[in-house]
């Protein structure tokens, strides 16, 4: 179990956040988070943003002309030979 110092300032805690979030540790259990409403709100927002990014972005259809351009470029690379 990870031992955390429990007397961190918000600034000191937030300086550690990138590493804490990027590790496998449960940041929500950090004593500073348990005692600091401000940093708890920050962490919740960052988690919301990460979760939204995973779920919200749609897959987009490219324009139909793109395949024609790719076919043409392939043909030119092959010296103008007919594609079969």
């Amino acid at each position, binding site marked *: 179990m990870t031992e955390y110092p429990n007397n961190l300032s918000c600034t000191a805690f937030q300086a550690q956040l990138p590493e804490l979030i990027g590790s496998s540790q449960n940041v929500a259990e950090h004593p500073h988070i348990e005692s600091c409403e401000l*940093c708890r709100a920050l962490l919740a927002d960052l988690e919301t943003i990460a979760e939204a*990014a995973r779920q919200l972005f749609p897959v987009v259809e490219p*324009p139909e002309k793109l395949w024609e*351009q790719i076919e043409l470029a392939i043909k030119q690379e092959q010296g103008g030979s007919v594609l079969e």
Partner: protein
Amino acid sequence: MDDPTPQAAEAERRQAAEEAPVADLKPRSAGLARAALTNPMEADVLARAQAGDHHAFAQLYSLHKRRIYSLCLRMVGNIAEAEDLTQEAFLQLHRKIATFRGDSAFSTWLHRLAINVVLMQLRKRGLQVISLDEAMEPAPEERAGRSFGAADLTLAGAIDRMALEHAVNDLPAGYRLIFVLHDIEGYEHNEIASMLDCSIGNSKSQLHKARLRLREALRSYPRQEARR
């Protein structure tokens, strides 16, 4: 009309393609990719495309065009550029498809190939994805011991998709790149560090800064909308 592309540019593209290894990295979102490997129909299409069957290659394009185009669009945030990069990715695929040996899922391999194409383009534009100066110097919002968070201004828990898209598009290119690779495409920090030739700590730090920028943008979004 002749192809206006200069031969030198073509030679450069080919050389760059050879220098960009397609590593076996598996994003969290590669479930479809692994499924594709076990799909006999796509395996057949892939084998025919590798043998030079143009119709099979067209089928592969149809199967993967949305994911590759979406990836390019998110990474560069510009439609015209995303089209060019998608075209270049599939041209490289056409050149390299015979070298795919099936060590990873095909779509994972293609995904990585497309990322290499985008990174190459960004580097040509002079983007320092991970600039040491940027990494060492605090962003304006981080200076003077300022800490983040305001209980009355937290996100409501639900984020509007359009707002998030706008905010991501407005990120500086380096931040957007790492945010897209990690939070949207599902790559781990060690994989991103390998792709971008930076440290894992830098990748974590840049991602954190990107999320902080997005938070600021999303918190001000309702106010911006109200002014419109």
